[in-house]
């Protein structure tokens, strides 16, 4: 803070008078309280503005405001303390500091410690050993310092022989002043950048209440921030009609460049997302004998796992579309699988209670298994993005969260059947769909006693899946048995939007991790729909039996 340097002409006597009664001496408007509800003290407001002007570099303006308003940025205490430190009047300094009211003992002793440290350093650097010791002994007994601080002060004297300092004395004193400014509380010293902080808090609060908020970046101060529904996907932009039967699963790759869909027609399709927002088929993966109900992208997006309810697991190369490996046989059917972040290890959960959960490497070697009497059918499982937790859903009401590193586990018991599980991108939360038409969100570490609940969709009999999505994973989307897609803002339990378009049950949804305005849904009506914000060209519903898709370019990205 360089405000003092601009004030050379003003006499300090006049200044001191101004501090005594800040409220009655103010020039300008007479009210002491301002703001919409009269909650803000005018002189505090002005003081904060002066600080802000200085921190933005407008020192002349800051000085002008001080004289015009009669309010001084620096408190009386600080105005006395500052020159004493800069001039090295240590005795006076300590007296002043001891006299400042409103300090906790801890703050006061920390401040005294800093001052003593600088003072001793200065004496010793001049070779003034006996003065240093005498000063130290006097202050220790007068101030009743804590033993710990005394020890450190004394210890540091070992290294401060004469002529051993790197910076100049005045630089060190300025540094000391800076440290004291950070230490001393208001009203003696204001916290740094106070106005920015206050405005920032208001902005953050507005963003938090903005239910449609779906993009990063700064917001304008001119109006209270509030996004419209054109920020989130609400309209069908494309229909992908290549499957011959019900589409049960859909998921974007981590890079957002691909979409995988799985169908009861026993195939899975890898779609490529084009730069203009359109989709084309990259590969159709055809070697399963039974319906494919689940896919999982490797974290590096080079491989895809597919599996089905009564079907083996296949590992596919995304680039070539060839099947690299098949895991298991008709004895071991896998209901769900997940990757570890190294893209080298896979966990699979079996619908056969005796098989439990297995961890494999990509070559098919079994690395670990969780089996045993307590194992029941595994309905779904997931691994958090940092690889620390393995979450599994057991038939049909139990969720087990295992910390893979410590091997500790905690269990959540739901009251209704769970059909699916989805983990947030940051690995801190997960959601489960229940047959009671609720989606429950829990925290991974297990601190929450109750879940957050989301309702509005329909789910009685089928496996319906949901997902996190949007900027900062602020939204949840889910399929529904009434052929609609539901979107919630995580903070509200009632749906934000209901998207119509499908003609049959929507089984699964996936939000593009790189494009917060692109959502995909998979339905029993044999199609995958791509949704985008209002304002993009609305598609007409057309299902085409060949792998050739109608698409309309997205305007937004």
């Amino acid at each position, binding site marked *: 803070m360089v405000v003092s340097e601009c004030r050379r002409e003003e006499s300090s006597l006049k200044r001191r008078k101004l501090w005594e009664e800040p409220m009655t001496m103010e020039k300008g408007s007479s009210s002491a309280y301002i703001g919409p509800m009269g909650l803000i003290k005018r002189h505090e407001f002005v003081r904060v503005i002066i600080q802000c002007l200085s921190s933005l570099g407008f020192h002349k303006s800051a000085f002008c405001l001080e004289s015009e308003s009669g309010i001084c940025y620096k408190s009386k205490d600080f105005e006395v303390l500052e020159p004493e430190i800069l001039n090295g009047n240590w005795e006076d300094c300590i007296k002043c500091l001891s006299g400042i009211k409103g300090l906790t003992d801890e703050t006061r002793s920390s401040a005294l410690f800093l001052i003593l440290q600088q003072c001793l350093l200065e004496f010793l650097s001049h070779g003034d050993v006996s003065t240093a*010791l005498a000063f130290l002994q006097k202050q220790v007994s007068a101030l009743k310092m804590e033993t710990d601080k005394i020890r450190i002060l*004394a210890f540091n*004297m*070992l*290294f401060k022989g004469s002529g051993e300092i790197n910076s100049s004395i005045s630089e060190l004193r300025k540094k000391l002043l800076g440290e004291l400014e950070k230490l001393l509380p208001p009203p003696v010293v204001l916290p740094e950048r106070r106005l920015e902080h206050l405005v920032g808090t208001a902005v953050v609060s507005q963003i938090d209440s903005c239910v449609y908020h779906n993009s990063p970046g700064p917001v304008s101060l001119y109006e209270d921030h509030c996004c419209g529904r054109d920020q989130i996907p609400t309209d069908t932009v494309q229909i992908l009609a290549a499957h011959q039967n019900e589409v049960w699963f859909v998921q974007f790759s981590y890079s957002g460049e691909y979409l995988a869909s799985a169908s009861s027609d026993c195939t899975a399709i890898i779609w490529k997302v084009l730069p203009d927002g359109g989709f084309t088929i990259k590969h159709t993966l055809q070697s399963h004998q039974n319906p494919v109900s689940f896919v999982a992208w490797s974290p590096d997006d080079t491989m895809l796992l597919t599996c089905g309810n009564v079907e083996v697991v296949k590992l596919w190369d995304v680039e070539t579309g060839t099947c690299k490996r098949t895991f298991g046989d008709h004895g071991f059917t896998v209901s769900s699988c997940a990757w570890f972040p190294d893209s080298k290890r896979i966990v699979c959960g079996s619908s056969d209670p005796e098989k439990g959960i297995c961890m494999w490497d990509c070559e098919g070697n079994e690395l670990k298994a969780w089996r045993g009497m307590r194992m029941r059918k595994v309905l779904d499982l997931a691994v958090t993005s940092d690889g620390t937790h393995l979450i599994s859903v057991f038939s049909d009401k139990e969720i087990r969260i295992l910390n893979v590193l410590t091997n500790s586990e905690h269990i959540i018991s739901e009251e209704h059947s769970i059909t699916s599980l989805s983990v947030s991108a940051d690995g801190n939360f997960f959601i489960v769909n229940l047959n009671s038409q609720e989606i429950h969100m829990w925290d991974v570490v297990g601190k929450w006693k109750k879940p957050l609940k989301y309702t509005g969709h329909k789910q009685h009999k089928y496996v319906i899946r949901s997902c996190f999505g949007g900027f900062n994973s602020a939204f949840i989307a889910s399929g529904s048995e009434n052929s609609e897609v539901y979107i919630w803002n995580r903070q509200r339990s009632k749906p934000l939007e209901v998207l119509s378009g499908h003609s049959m049950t929507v089984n699964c949804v996936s939000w593009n991790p790189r494009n917060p305005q692109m959502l995909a849904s998979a339905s029993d009506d044999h199609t995958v729909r791509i949704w985008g914000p209002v304002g993009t060209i609305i598609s007409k519903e057309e299902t085409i039996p060949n792998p050739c898709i109608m698409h309309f370019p997205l305007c937004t990205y």
Partner: protein
Amino acid sequence: MEYDPRLYEQIAVSDNDTHNIVLSYLIHNCFKETVESFICSTGIKKPADCLEDIDRRKRIIKFALDGNALKAIELTEQLAPDLLEKNKDLHFELLSLHFIELVRSKRCTEALEFAQKNLSPFGKVQTYVKKLEDLMALLAYEEPEKSPMFHLFSLDRRQMVAEDLNRAILAHTNQPSYSSLERLIQQTTVVDRQLNQEHGKEGQSSFSLEEFVKKKIRTSTQEFPSKGQKQDA
């Protein structure tokens, strides 16, 4: 552990052993005249250079006990040039002794300068930091003997340092650092404790030498006179 007293009587203790135990104790503690007279009285062989070595060591240890650590260091360096280098902890303790003496005699300025010159290298090593903080804090008090660090002035401390120095010098001249008597007492205590633990006897883990000796002497004189007892020389 309680054993049948007769078991003890079956063990013969040779004169040679007892004399060596006593001699080792006397040498360890630098009782030069007693050593000479003991050797005369018992007729055992005098170890080579024994008396000169005791003399040298005794001087050094006395300086340390008196608080003249610098002289003790000087003589130790003469006797064994790399001993202190190899025993950093000991070196530190000796330097600290000198520092403490300076503070005690109110020569604080000298003490600080001494510390800056000789103790600051230790300050860069984490293991010495806490001890150095204690030492340096003495300078902060007008009456250091009333400070929380007053224990640094105690005689016990000086004795411990002197003893450590004694052991280091003995080790350096290829003599045992512990006298056989010490070791025997330590051995008995350890074994007794271990046996008590194995036999599950709680509360009997503290071995009292006095109790032990009292019991054993009383028992043997009551029940088994004369066999195995020796006349005084």
